[in-house]
């Protein structure tokens, strides 16, 4: 079986390379996502070391990766957190959407990407990376800060908005009509509402079904349920990602805690496969001409995120320094921008993949750096604190 040994060898080497990259990124306190993307670029067509045999596994792993990413995203929320966020931060979410989606949409339109492409690029620039930012807040020991709840609320509302945005984009990318797209958004929103209601009333029953003492059983049931729901959602064109997200939303409390624990390593593995695949599908030779656009877009949308954070933190009565911290920490884009680009990568003419990849690589690296640098700005900017300190 010559194919098998090639697959094993290539896959093993790929995983070993990823492990080194991941260790490197974590060592410096950064997200490994940009490095995975770069690895994909290097290993794909036109890259330095193509791995054709491992491609099939990585491709299948990628679609499972999206499902698991969305499952954990759903697991992150409780209804209480969602309703608190909605009560206080709907205006911030609106500001966030308008300020950050607009640059993407405008650039998409100027590049001639069409409706679907512009909408996808709007999503790419809109969504901050909850993964990178939540981790960053912990690393920078900012969980005690007053601006932190507003930052996290924005992330929650963005992520929940994805549940409506993804199916809309999915249908439009598949060539569906507007009414078709709206219908599927309606279905998705209905399903989210139903999921919230169900988790409120009948969550206990589902949790009893899942909650076995045996970890293996628990994992098998959880994965089985998630993949069935995701597959069924894909079948009715509501997108597998949304299905997985719903399963995550319904699970709460201890089962959610346990699910997060057992899923985390699997998710990281398959998510790595996903980022790798996105890198693999892109020919690195298409990147250089797009660099100035990606860079410009990164600068503009970094500033608009700072504006968003400033506005949201001010609603919570945070001082200017805190507002700046909130804005700077929101700059990072990551996994969800890539998921959005991945959803349209086959149906658009090819700019969006490389553009998003470059954009995410820039902001996933620059975002955390800027968030750290904000702390170094001398106190002079705020005379009132100086007065207090004396």
């Amino acid at each position, binding site marked *: 079986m010559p194919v098998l040994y090639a697959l094993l060898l290539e896959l093993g080497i790929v995983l070993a390379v990823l492990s080194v990259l991941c260790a490197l990124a974590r060592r410096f306190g950064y997200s490994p996502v940009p490095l995975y993307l770069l690895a994909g670029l290097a290993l794909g067509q036109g890259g330095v070391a193509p791995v054709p045999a491992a491609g099939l596994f990585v491709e299948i792993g990628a679609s499972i990766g999206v499902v698991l990413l969305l499952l954990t995203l759903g697991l992150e929320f409780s209804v209480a957190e969602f309703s608190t966020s909605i009560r206080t931060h709907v205006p911030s979410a609106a500001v966030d959407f308008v300020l950050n989606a607009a640059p993407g949409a405008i650039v998409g339109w100027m590049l001639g990407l069409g409706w679907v492409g512009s909408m996808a690029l709007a999503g790419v620039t809109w969504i901050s990376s909850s993964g990178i930012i939540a981790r960053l807040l912990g690393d920078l*020991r900012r*969980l005690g800060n*007053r601006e*932190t709840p507003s930052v*996290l609320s924005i992330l929650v509302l963005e992520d929940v908005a994805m549940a409506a945005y993804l199916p809309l984009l999915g249908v439009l990318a598949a060539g569906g009509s507007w009414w078709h797209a709206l219908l599927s958004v309606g279905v998705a929103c209905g399903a989210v509402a139903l999921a919230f209601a169900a988790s409120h009333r009948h969550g206990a029953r589902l949790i009893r079904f899942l909650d076995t003492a045996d970890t293996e059983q628990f994992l098998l049931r959880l994965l089985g349920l998630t993949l069935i729901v995701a597959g069924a959602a894909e079948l009715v064109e509501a997108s597998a990602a949304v299905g997985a997200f719903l399963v995550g939303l319904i699970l709460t409390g201890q089962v959610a805690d346990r699910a997060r624990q057992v899923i985390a390593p699997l998710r990281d593995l398959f998510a790595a496969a996903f980022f790798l695949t996105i890198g693999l599908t892109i020919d690195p030779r298409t990147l250089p001409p797009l660099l100035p656009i990606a860079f410009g877009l990164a600068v503009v949308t970094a500033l608009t995120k700072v504006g968003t954070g400033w506005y949201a933190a001010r609603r919570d009565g945070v*001082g200017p320094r805190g507002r700046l911290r909130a804005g700077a920490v929101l700059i990072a884009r990551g996994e969800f921008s890539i998921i959005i680009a991945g959803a349209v990568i086959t149906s658009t003419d090819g700019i969006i993949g490389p553009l998003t990849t470059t954009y995410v690589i820039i902001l996933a690296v620059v975002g955390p750096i800027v968030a750290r640098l904000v702390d170094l700005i001398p106190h002079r900017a705020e005379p009132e604190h100086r007065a207090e*300190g004396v």
Partner: protein
Amino acid sequence: MDVTEVLLPGVGVRYEFTTAEGNRIGIIVSRRGDVELVSYAADPDVGQPVFRLTTEEADTVAEILGAPRITERFADLSKEIPGLRAEDLPVAVGSPFVGRRLGDTRARTRTGASIVAIVRGDDVIASPGPDEVLHSGDNLVVIGTQEGIAGVNAILKG
């Protein structure tokens, strides 16, 4: 004492309160169970990290702060309900139940008194299950009637 609860979506909960001395304290309990203590001394917006505890360390701190109160509360309880008493009974070195499970004593079935906690050195095992293994030197917190408690004592002595 006024404790403000701030939800940190996706991360956990932050509890904030001001001490009698005027210090503003924040306790962040993350979902994974680890705990961070911060103080708002210099800037009300910035929580200065004081220390971070793992789940296990946080449990220990909670036990240290909470342990003396458990027996105290049982004592209060027996004052409130006439006829009901609480007592600490030692598991002596020669007891037939050293190294056996709590359930083996069948204390509640035989006497009607309940063993509500095991005090083992600095540890308190509150509401122990029947599988809890008894060690010599353990103190059992027993609640029941005078006769019931005497009965448990007799069982422990064998």
